[in-house]
């Protein structure tokens, strides 16, 4: 989220698209109802299904899953055509005026430089015109035909209301009503918030869905302001935290990136990351990359990370591919190239696409270790449950070790919510049986391995032997110790740059925040963006002052938000070029002539003059990007792409399938279905009564939504002779599930490109363990292909067929 949950009450228009806030985030959705009740805000829902969010909306428009880009491009076009643009904001705070290299273009659904063999673009032309001064050439008048703004208008031209209806199946008048309501938020005194989640990410073009809305929000001037922003609702309680902390294949902590084989040494690595400003006087905060990186290496390897050994740069694994994401790992596992797997609080058997492939992959493992508070299907993937898990147990040679862990109620620590608040919590219960904390388990495995390396030696032991592990009890580091390490401290006295004689931070003291980190090895910090969470003032994540002066919804005294306790990102953009708030009634920051003051922590230097420094300090431009240069593999502008399995062809390029640059493995390509065999457009989603595969273990939630079902329209039920509450079989090219049918008016057929498209809704939540009735997950049907930029599987749009059926059978002897 760029903003926070409590900030949503400041909005005038909520657009829920690519998400279902009322069902997946009910208590956050409270702030939508507050905005409606107290600001007269309106709520728009655009979704293939009439969801529980739609049930309290002011306006609902249906859309075919996977066509959001066309819809949003259509809205952008509508706003531009009708002069509903926040011009001052767009000109000053985006790269609209920047000139783009000749040669860049878009034709037949493809940008310039496409190589069908490599399934990749040559992105060299996707860039700005750089002047002799090393800065981008701009045309503030937006007259130049090659400026981003005019290229954007050109790119959006095809997305007429008629085209939107043709692609999305959204009736023209409904689309126009939505576009009209959205366009009203182009005035500085009206703002709109976008609430989205996996309805946008789980597509082969997920990143572009989000970009499209971000661009719309930018031209409406809604980024950085109260009640505005791009708000990713996020799934798990700490999915934000684990991403911030870089628990991903291609990341280090704080969005420092993992080195690749190209980064032969530390300097080469740094050379491509310390971005210089592209416009005069801009901050380009990544110029400080080296400070954060060195402090990170010191946090990892302490004294073993020295200037003379490149700060132990070679201890880090270097990637030979963009990432070893879960799809790639399961592909390797399936091919027998993975021997062991550790699965901490994760249920991949039901979470990853193509369950049959997952089962085969897990069966190829020599060993599997699971750590979880609960039974999981993954830990028991080898157990036969009749139709629910039809495996030949005896033939599965995988050794499985299942370790019981504590849960939230039995441990101290912090979780980062989607508003970037790091909130500390305390243990309130005694763990059951022999359950242990994850930190204990990790520490134990690490210490035992380190001991083996000490005694036996082995392959490149240095990173293990030298990993800094100085905790009071190395067998079980405490949450506080780890939190202090994340915040960082001075390893030797840190001097004040202004006055080299003055000690800023004495050796051994916690740094106040990342502004005190150094690149000379005198500081360490596990995760620079979290620095400030636990400094000499104490544990700021445990702060509980819930006062909110003037009801702005910022709550600066409540816990800690990264970075620097900032609650709204890009908040400088809430004020105009003179530093006056666009909307005085929604003031966030204000330039008092000498410095920025207001309700939030400014995200530019407090004394940076309004005219000089742009709000988007993480960008080299200092502005937001309507055109992303070569930073995204599938295009600098969002272009309509169909899902890999779609009931209709791509109207821009009939031969193009899915995202032209998405990686898809050979066997998985063979397992893609076509609409003649699988005529119905399926989508997967969560229900409000359940949380993923956890609450089926809970008797209460199991009673509230007991059994697996699929949702279809009355029309489709009629067409296939399906009765409400009866059993159906749903199958795709990859597998089948059996479910109860819920026949509903909430799903209606859409007319896309002249033909009716029936939607089949498939909730997750059921498996073969727990209190609820045994069932299946949609992943049995989902294709094994992901987003071109971050490899999130396309779980939201795929093809199935459906027919009346009989109940699934459990293993013999089980009722």
């Amino acid at each position, binding site marked *: 989220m760029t903003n926070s949950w409590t900030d949503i009450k400041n909005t005038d228009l909520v657009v829920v698209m690519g998400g279902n806030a009322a069902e997946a985030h009910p208590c956050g959705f409270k702030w939508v109802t507050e905005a409606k009740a107290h600001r007269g805000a309106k709520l728009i829902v655009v979704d293939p299904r009439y969801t529980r969010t739609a049930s309290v909306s002011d306006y609902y428009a249906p859309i075919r899953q996977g066509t959001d880009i066309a819809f949003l491009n259509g809205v952008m076009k509508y706003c531009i055509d009708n002069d509903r643009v926040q011009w001052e904001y767009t000109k000053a705070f985006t790269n609209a005026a920047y000139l783009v290299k000749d040669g860049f273009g878009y034709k037949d659904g493809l940008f310039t430089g496409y190589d069908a063999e490599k399934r990749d673009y040559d992105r060299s032309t996707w860039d700005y015109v750089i002047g002799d001064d090393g800065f981008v050439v701009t045309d503030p008048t937006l007259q130049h035909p090659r400026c981003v703004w005019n290229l954007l208008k050109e790119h959006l031209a095809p997305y007429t209301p008629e085209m939107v209806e043709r692609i999305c199946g959204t009736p023209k008048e409904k689309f126009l009503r939505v576009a009209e309501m959205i366009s009203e938020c182009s005035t500085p005194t009206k703002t709109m918030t976008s609430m989205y989640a996996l309805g946008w990410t789980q597509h082969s073009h997920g990143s572009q869905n989000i970009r499209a809305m971000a661009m719309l929000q930018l031209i409406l001037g809604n980024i950085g302001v109260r009640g505005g922003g791009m708000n990713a609702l996020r799934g798990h309680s700490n999915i934000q935290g684990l991403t911030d902390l870089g628990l991903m294949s291609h990341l280090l902590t704080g969005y420092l990136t993992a080195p690749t084989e190209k980064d032969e040494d530390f300097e080469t690595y740094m050379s491509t990351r310390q971005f210089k400003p592209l416009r005069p006087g801009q901050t380009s905060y990544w110029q400080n990359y080296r400070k954060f990186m060195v402090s990170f290496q010191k946090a990892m390897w302490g004294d073993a990370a020295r200037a003379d050994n490149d700060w132990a740069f070679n201890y880090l694994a270097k990637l030979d591919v963009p990432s*070893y994401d879960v799809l790639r790992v399961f592909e390797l596992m399936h091919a027998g190239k993975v021997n062991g797997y550790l699965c901490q609080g994760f249920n991949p058997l039901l979470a990853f696409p193509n369950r049959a492939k997952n089962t085969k992959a897990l069966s190829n493992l020599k060993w599997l270790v699971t750590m979880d508070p609960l039974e999981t299907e993954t830990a028991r993937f080898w157990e036969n449950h009749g139709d629910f898990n039809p495996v030949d147990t005896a033939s599965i040679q995988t050794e499985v070790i299942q370790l019981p862990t504590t849960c939230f109620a039995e441990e101290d620590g912090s979780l980062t919510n989607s508003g970037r608040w790091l909130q500390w919590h305390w243990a309130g219960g005694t763990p059951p049986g022999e359950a242990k904390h994850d930190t204990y388990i990790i520490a134990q495995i690490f210490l035992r391995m380190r001991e083996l390396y000490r005694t036996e030696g082995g392959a490149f032991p240095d990173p293990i032997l030298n990993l800094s592990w100085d905790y009071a009890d190395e067998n079980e580091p405490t949450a506080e110790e780890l939190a202090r390490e994340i915040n960082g401290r001075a390893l030797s006295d840190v001097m004040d740059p202004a006055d080299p004689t003055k000690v800023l931070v004495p050796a051994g003291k916690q740094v106040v925040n990342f502004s005190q980190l150094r690149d000379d090895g005198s500081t360490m910090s596990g995760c620079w963006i979290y620095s400030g969470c636990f400094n000499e003032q104490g544990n700021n994540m445990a702060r509980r002052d819930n006062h909110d002066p003037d009801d702005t919804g910022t709550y600066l005294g409540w816990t800690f938000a990264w970075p620097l306790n900032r609650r709204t990102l890009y908040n400088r953009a809430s004020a105009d070029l003179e530093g006056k708030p666009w909307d005085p009634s929604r003031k966030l920051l204000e330039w008092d002539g000498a410095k920025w003051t207001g309700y939030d922590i400014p995200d530019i230097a407090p004394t940076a003059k309004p005219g000089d420094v742009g709000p988007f300090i993480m960008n080299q431009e200092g502005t937001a990007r309507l055109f992303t240069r070569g930073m995204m593999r599938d295009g600098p502008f969002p272009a309509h792409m169909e899902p890999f399995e779609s009931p209709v062809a791509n109207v821009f390029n009939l031969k193009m399938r899915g995202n032209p640059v998405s990686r898809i493995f050979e066997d998985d390509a063979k397992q893609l279905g076509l609409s003649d065999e699988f005529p119905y457009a399926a989508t997967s989603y969560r229900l409000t009564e359940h949380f993923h595969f956890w609450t089926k273990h809970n008797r*209460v939630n199991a009673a509230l939504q007991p059994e697996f079902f699929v949702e279809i329209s009355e029309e489709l039920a009629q067409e296939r002779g399906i009765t409400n509450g009866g059993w159906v079989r749903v199958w795709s090219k990859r597998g089948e599930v059996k479910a109860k049918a819920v026949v509903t008016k909430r799903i209606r057929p859409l007319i896309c490109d002249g033909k009716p498209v029936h939607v089949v809704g498939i909730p997750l939540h059921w498996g073969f363990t727990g209190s609820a009735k045994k069932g299946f997950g949609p992943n049995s049907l989902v294709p094994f292909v992901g987003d071109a930029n971050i490899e*999130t599987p396309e779980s939201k749009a795929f093809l199935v067929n459906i027919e009346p059926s009989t109940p699934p059978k459990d293993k013999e002897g089980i009722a």
Partner: protein
Amino acid sequence: MNIDLSRRSFLKLAGAGVVATSVGAMGFGESEAAEIAHVRAFKLKTTTETRNTCPYCSVACGVIIYSKGDSRKGETADIVHIEGDADHPTNRGTLCPKGAALKDFVKSPTRLQHPMLRKPGSDTFERISWDDALDRIARLMKDDRDANLLAANAKGIPVNRWTTVGMLAASATTNETAWATFKFAKSLGIVGFDNQARV
């Protein structure tokens, strides 16, 4: 943990209107009160409160855990109830159907109690001690790393890449656990390392 805050605001009950039923309690003696005890006994009486946050979605609602016994005093703490924290700015005491039933998640019959081992080809899990389990895992991992770590690439550049063992981290663990897990996995050179954010 700022329990006082709720104590103070308890007096503000008037605002909720239930003040009429909450003030001017009639002075019944214990025995008499028991005899005329009418409504169900208040089940949170003399329980221990602990501030926590909901482990489900990332709204991260504040909750209060009510337990018999106080783990901070070294006692066994048996959780008897979990309810929304009225002092929390985001949820203001409210909870969704999942959060409201957290007690039965913590106390679910399928909570794991002991380390278990499934031998190759076996159709059941059998108990195993923590020590045996952890030693076994360390051994399996070390042997595989020694056998399959790619220390350097063809050009002789150190790459310290271990692709034959992968790990998934739980995005419901704390940041602190995550940091420990990160150090562990990245120092070993595990590149097949991801969390739920990807899916």
